[in-house]
């Protein structure tokens, strides 16, 4: 077992622990911070695959921006822990359904003949220009459409949050 393998196990186990903490904690701030840690370890896994760009974006977008806003909302709402202690049956059924589906999907994937390594198998290089250039050439239309979708969502949020806007 070389350093690479050891780090892989360290990051993976840490990610699983963080993932469990996200749903197990009663305090939403703890959950949010666990999720931040989880993203950091996931970035570590990307670094092991030498996908530095993905690792950086992972931290920049999710840990640095999205989760900060989550934390913001949690703190401003100041949810009481007692409200969260109630078990909602609808939530439980939904969670079981979704996680069951996920387990079934993973099982289906694992049944496939083993792929040695996603990166090596396809001969993918994950450098900056390898990731970015196709976005501006091959996948130009999908990128633009996604951008339009995001813009529409943003305008929608502004409209909804300013109800008295006439």
């Amino acid at each position, binding site marked *: 077992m070389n350093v690479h393998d050891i780090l892989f196990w360290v990051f993976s186990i840490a990610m699983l622990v963080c993932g469990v903490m996200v749903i197990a904690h009663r305090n939403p701030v703890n959950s949010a911070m666990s999720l931040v840690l989880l993203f950091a370890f996931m970035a570590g896994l990307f670094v092991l695959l030498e996908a530095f*760009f993905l690792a*950086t*974006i992972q*931290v920049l977008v999710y840990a640095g921006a999205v989760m900060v*806003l989550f934390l913001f909302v949690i*703190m401003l709402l100041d949810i009481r822990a007692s409200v969260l202690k109630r078990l909602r049956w609808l939530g439980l059924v939904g969670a079981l359904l979704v996680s069951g589906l996920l387990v079934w999907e993973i099982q289906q994937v694992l049944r496939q003949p083993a792929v040695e390594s996603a990166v090596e198998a396809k001969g993918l290089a994950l450098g900056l220009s390898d990731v970015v250039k196709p976005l501006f050439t091959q996948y130009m239309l999908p990128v633009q459409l996604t951008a339009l979708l995001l813009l529409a969502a943003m305008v929608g949020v502004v409209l909804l949050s300013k109800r008295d806007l006439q």
Partner: protein
Amino acid sequence: MNELLIHLLKIAGVIGVMLGIVAYTVLAERWVCAWMQDRIGPNRVGPFGILQPLADGLKFIFKEDVLPRHVRHKFYFTVAPMITMVPALITVAVVPWGSYLPVLGHNIKGVIADLDVGILFIFAIASLGVYGIVLAGWSSNSKYPFLGGIRSSAQMISYEVCLGLSVVPVFMQAGTLNLWNVVLYQAEHTWLVWCQPLSFVIFMVSAFAETNRTPFDLPEAEQELVGGYHTEYSSMKFAMFFLGEYANMFVASALMATLFFGGWSLPVAPLNAPATTLAVGLAHVGVFLAKTLFFLFVFIWVRWTLPRFRYDQLMTLGWKVFVPLTIVNILVSSVVLAVMENG
């Protein structure tokens, strides 16, 4: 093993020099302030007061570490000052301190981590610094820190956008995100501040907002918020916030020097190309540090010159002035670059 040793030495050197500069920036701040207000300033500890940082450090360590009873979460309360300090120490890893240092047959590159995603790495790690402030404000569980924390994080998130957008033209022109190569480009061509002056101005102003310095230091506006997010902190925990601010200032200064003022290069004969001898290599490090110290001085200079902005003025400046300006700047720069390449 040799490689590992070189890396460890580089890390130790960079962190050591950086923390030394951070400690002395605090003293410089007091000196410059005294000078500008026609006072004498600290001059009691050691000759001319140069041992003042040591005395301050000892004082911080020996003060009682008060943990107010109303603190909501002890763990986050303790960890928050560390989170504000650490990103500055990590981001400095991708800043090029010099070109090469040819020592004993090794050609040591003047940067700890020569990452191709350089600047993105800096923004990614720097964006984590907000957690320290948010958590400090929330876990203190009293109104002034909470208001200060909310203000500060809103400010940092807003100006992160300006900061990120303002440097895009720089990297479009240099054609690389690797900071060492950006400096090399400037050594071979010209300093980017001459080509991208608007970028530089917006970057500098945003950096002031991002490091919570005057004229944008309203998160800790004493008159309205007592001390802002660090009101409830004492002893070394407060010192960590304090040093974190100066460490962030150091990184911002180093970035201004690197991105816009040629980093380790000077436009004269032996200093405008990567070093081949040790003397030139060391001179490069000296040039880089001199430029960084100059920008640290500008930070202090501005603090004792300009009054503080109002909160709404700050937000208006960020979202309604800087964001549109940077986007226009990106558009114009890309058109000019495309015309110059093809025409």
